[in-house]
C-alpha cells in the first residue's frame, strides 16, 4: 500500500471516528419516559373557601379510566362549574357539570353528597373518593 493511500485511509477513519463519538446506549433504568411525580405535602384542608379555577394534574384509580382531564371552577358563593375530558364513543369528549359545594372539617361535599376527604398543599387540592384520587392545581383565570 502506498504511503498516500495509508494516509487517506487514516484520515477517513479519523473523520468517521470523530463523527461516531457522542453516543452510547441508553441505560435500562433510563429507558422509561419520565412521568412527572408530584412531591407535595398534603394536609387536611378543613373548612376553607374554594375560589378559582383548578385543573387536574394527577388522576389515580378507577376514575382515571373515565377521565383524562378535569377542571373545576369554584365560586366563593358555594357554586361550581366543572368539565371533564373523557372517552366518548367517538373519541375524547368533554362533559360539564354545575352544582354547589360545601367544605368543612369533614371534607368537600359536592351537590350535597357525602363529604369527601379534602387535602391541600400550596396551590393544590387533593380529593379522595372510592374511585381514586384527584389532584387539582390552582390556575389563574386570565
Amino acid at each position, binding site marked *: 500500500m502506498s504511503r498516500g493511500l495509508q494516509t487517506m*485511509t487514516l484520515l477517513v477513519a479519523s473523520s*468517521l471516528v470523530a463523527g*461516531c463519538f457522542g453516543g*452510547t*446506549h441508553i441505560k435500562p433504568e433510563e429507558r422509561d*419516559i419520565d412521568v412527572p411525580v408530584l412531591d407535595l405535602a398534603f394536609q387536611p384542608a378543613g373548612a376553607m373557601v374554594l375560589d378559582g379555577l383548578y385543573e387536574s394534574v394527577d388522576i389515580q384509580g378507577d*376514575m382515571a379510566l373515565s377521565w383524562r382531564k378535569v377542571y373545576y371552577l369554584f365560586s366563593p358563593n358555594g357554586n361550581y362549574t*366543572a368539565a*371533564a375530558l373523557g372517552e366518548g364513543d367517538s373519541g375524547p369528549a368533554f362533559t360539564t357539570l354545575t352544582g354547589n359545594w360545601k367544605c368543612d372539617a369533614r371534607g368537600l361535599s359536592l*351537590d350535597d353528597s357525602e363529604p369527601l376527604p379534602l387535602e391541600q398543599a400550596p396551590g393544590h387540592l387533593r380529593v379522595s373518593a372510592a374511585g381514586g384520587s384527584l389532584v387539582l392545581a390552582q390556575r389563574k383565570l386570565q
Partner: protein
Amino acid sequence: MTGKLLQVFGVLFVLALVGGSIAGFGILKDRVKVVVSPDAAATGPDPIAELKDNVNVLSGELGTLQQALGTNFEQLAAGIDERAGARHAELMGLQRDLAAVQKQLAALGQENVALRQQLAQLGKQLEALPAGGGMQVASAPGGAAALPAEPQPQPQATPAAVETPPPTAPAELAEAPKKPDASKPKGNFLFGGAKFRCDEPHDYEIVPELSRVAFDAKSTLHDFTGVTQNVSGTFRIDFDDPQGAWSGSVRCDATTLKTGVDGRDSNMWEYLDTKNHPAIEFTIEKFEPAKDGVDVVRQTAKGEVVGTMSIRGKQKPVRMPVQLEIDPQKRLIVKGEMPLSLPDYDVPVPSQLGVINMEKDVKVWISLRARVKAGGGK
C-alpha cells in the same frame, strides 16, 4: 362387846336422824312455798297478734301490687296495640311498593318483549336487504326508526345539572363492550366509573408521549442507541387469559429513529430502506406467561409475547420477553427486549471501509405506556 356397842350406837344414830328430820320438817313446813312459773322464752309479744298484723300488712301490699299491675298491663296493652298499628301501616306500605315494583317489572318485561320483536324484525329486514345495499336503514311502519324513540331511563347519580345528554340506545341492542362511560358524570366526576380488572380483556392504545421503541447497537468503536417516540398501536390484552389470546400491534415510524448523529441517522434510514418501508411493526399473536408470572392482585405479568416482526418489508416470527404492570393512573406499562439479527431482515450491516464495523446483532427494546381505549372494556 365392841360389836354390841356398835349396834347400840347405830340404832341411836338412826333414831337421831329420824328425829332431826321430823324436827326440821316441823320448823320449815310453813316457810317453803313452791311456785311453778312459765318458761322465760315464752315471754314477749303475743305471736297470734303478731301474725295477724303481718297478715294485715301483706294484704295491704297485695292490694297495692294489684293496682300497680293493673296500670302496667293497661300501658303494655296500649303499647302493643300502637306498635301493631304501626307495623300494619308499614306492611300495607310495603305491599303497595311491592305491587308497584311488580307492575313496573311487568311493564319492563313487556318493553323487553317489544324490543326483542323489533330486533327480530330488524334482523329479518337486514337479511332481506340485497348484498352491498346494507347502508339503507330499515324503518318501522309510519316512517319512525325501528328502535324505540323513547330514551331509556338513566340513573341520575347527583342533582347536578348534566349538560351532556345520555346515550339513548338500549343496552341490549348494542354489542359494544362495556367501558367507562364518559357521557354520564358519576357523582361529580369523582364517583363510580368502571372497576378496572387486569384479568379482563381490555383494548389498550399506546400513549406516544410516554412510549419509546429503540435498539442498542454495538460497533467497533462504541455503542449507540437508536430511539423513537413515534410509536402507535393498539392491543387487546387479558393478563390472565389462559389461552394467552392477545392481539394487536405496535408500530413505530422508522424515519424518526435517531441515534444522536445526523450522518449515522441518514445511513441507518438508508439501510432500513425507510423510503419504501417507513414502518417497523410488531404484530402480537399470543402471550405465554411465565410460571407464576401473572399476579392479578398486584396487576403484573411476566412472559413472552409471540408475534411477527416486520422490518424493511421482511417478516419473521419472534418472541419478546415482556413485563407488564398497571400504574396508579391505570395505564398499562409494557417493557421488553429481545435480540435481533439484522441479516434476518435483509438489513445490511453497516461498515465503514472495513475499519468501523457494526455488529450484526442488535437489542430491540420497548418501553410503552398505553391507556384503556374508548370502548375498550370487557
